[in-house]
């Protein structure tokens, strides 16, 4: 593989990150795909593609890319977290909780993983475990409940 391909790929990858950070997910997708074309073994492209597909609501390709990312990096907490979110979307709450627990084992201060773990426990009817996970999340992100409540109020228009 030529270093030119790697450099070009990195450039597209960086652009993709910028676009994704600005909420331009279709453009980000294009840049990440280009990055992969230039250098198929470029690190983190699969996890970024997975995340962007999630943002676009396209869960099937998201899962494919996230699984590929996990093959290359089995303890990546972000990838585990997103796979957990997808499992929860499919209402497979047990698998969702398992993914989030694995994410938290790698990164104990991952607030979003705690929040997702709490949701999965709640869906499984385990209130004690849900409170524990939510408490862990609230210790990491003190405003999380308020912001979820604000989302709820916005949804209801109150």
């Amino acid at each position, binding site marked *: 593989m030529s270093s030119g391909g790697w450099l070009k790929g990195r450039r597209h990858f960086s652009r993709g990150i910028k676009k994704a950070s600005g909420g331009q997910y279709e453009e980000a997708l294009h840049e990440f795909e280009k990055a992969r074309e230039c250098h198929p073994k470029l690190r983190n492209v699969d996890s970024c593609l997975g995340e962007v597909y999630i943002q676009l609501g396209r869960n099937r390709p998201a899962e494919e890319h996230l699984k590929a990312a996990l093959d290359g990096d089995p303890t990546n907490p972000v990838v585990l977290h997103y796979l957990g979110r997808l499992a929860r979307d499919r209402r497979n709450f047990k698998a969702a909780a398992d993914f989030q627990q694995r994410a938290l084992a790698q990164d104990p201060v991952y607030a979003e993983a705690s*929040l997702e773990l*709490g*949701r999965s426990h*709640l*869906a499984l009817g*385990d*209130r*004690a*475990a*849900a*409170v*524990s996970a*939510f*408490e*862990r*999340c*609230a*210790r990491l992100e*003190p*405003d*999380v*409940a*308020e912001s*979820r*409540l604000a*989302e*709820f*109020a916005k*949804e*209801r228009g*109150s």
Partner: protein
Amino acid sequence: MFENLKRGMLFNKAQRYARSGRIDEALGLFESLTGQAPDWAIAKSHHAMALARKGNFGDAVHVATEASGIAPDHFAVALFAGQVFFDAGRLEDARGAFEKAAEIETDNTLPRSYLALVQMATGDFQEGYNCLREIGPERQPEFQARLLMITEQELAKGEKRK
């Protein structure tokens, strides 16, 4: 005298375990402490909270009720009892305990915030939400966790309707 000091140290250790999620270890210590000093209400309250954390709501409610019987005018005992009842889904008992805590410390907003939470959980979500807004933000993680639980339950209901 040294016995009390030793107990105090064990109590602090048990609380640290509970806060860091080492519930089995915390439970072991709380059980030993409440065995040595059966009238120590606040230790019983913490024991009850640890039991609830473990999902053993039956024993948690029993121990929290015992603690309230020993120290009926203790603010933290009433507040903990309310939390245990709330987690166990015994919302009317929770309301009673939080009302008691609000009576004991009239200036403290925490029991009133919990009362608003009970209102949200008993079906009057909007009214409880309005009360919370009036009281102002409450950042205690234990409260935030329960607020998250109620909010997530409501959000899940909304998702199901969609």
